[in-house]
């Protein structure tokens, strides 16, 4: 089949409308990008905050879990102030 007869070869001749101007494209990109970036940052913050909270409250959480299972709070070493 010659290139003139081949319909696939004619695809290159299909006219494409002119490209929208750069400012319109940038505005559209920003309109889509900003909410996603915000959502991403919120998720990152939430994950980071959760990890921080877990690390800092690990002892308390472990004690609460132990109390749930055994019914007794773990004994804490007495501080120097409480000694007679």
């Amino acid at each position, binding site marked *: 089949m010659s290139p003139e007869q081949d*319909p*696939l*070869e*004619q*695809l*290159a001749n*299909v006219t*494409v*409308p002119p*490209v*929208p101007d*750069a400012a*319109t*494209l*940038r505005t*559209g*990109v*920003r*309109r*889509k*990008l*900003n909410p*996603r*970036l915000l959502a991403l940052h919120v998720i990152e913050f939430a994950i980071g905050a959760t990890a921080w909270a877990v690390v800092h409250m690990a002892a308390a959480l472990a004690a609460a879990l132990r109390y749930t299972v055994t019914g007794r709070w773990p004994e804490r070493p007495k501080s120097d102030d409480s000694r007679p």
Partner: protein
Amino acid sequence: MDDLSALTDTELAAQAAREGSDGIAFTTLMDRHRERVWRICWRLMGTQHDAEDAAQEVFVRLFFDRGKFAGRSAYTTWLHGVAVRTCLTLRRSRTRRRRREEPDVDERIATAADTTTHPSAAIDASHDVTALLDGLDEEDRALVLMRFAEGHDYDQLAEIFDISAGACRMRISRIREKLAATRKTP
């Protein structure tokens, strides 16, 4: 404003990966490639509105993936791969949504497919080459458009579609046969 026009795409991509969303390198990349990305989006999506939406989506995806360019191919080929995948995802999600909203759409698609095998419709379709492609699978349609409308060679197609160059050649040969059969069917 810094003049980044002398930098190559790869250098700009590396700089964009270190910048925020309003970085000048990313904006320069966008300006440099918007025309070709627009052409790909328009050819794959078929309407002005969908193409504009897809082109914006391509650059949003490019922003999130801007650090993933590994340099295995030319930057333009990699970017065209991003554009094709974005358009295919949008087309698939639109088809799914249309199916949900209009449950009888499958029936209408089947009816439309029947008319393309009708002799008069086949003759009309030969004049309207883009109508011929509507009967193809989404990815096959994209492959043909990237090969014949955008002029990518088989190695570039292999990179864009993440298959081997031989597989691209084979698929295009099968598509040719399928289209020829569609045109000849009485």
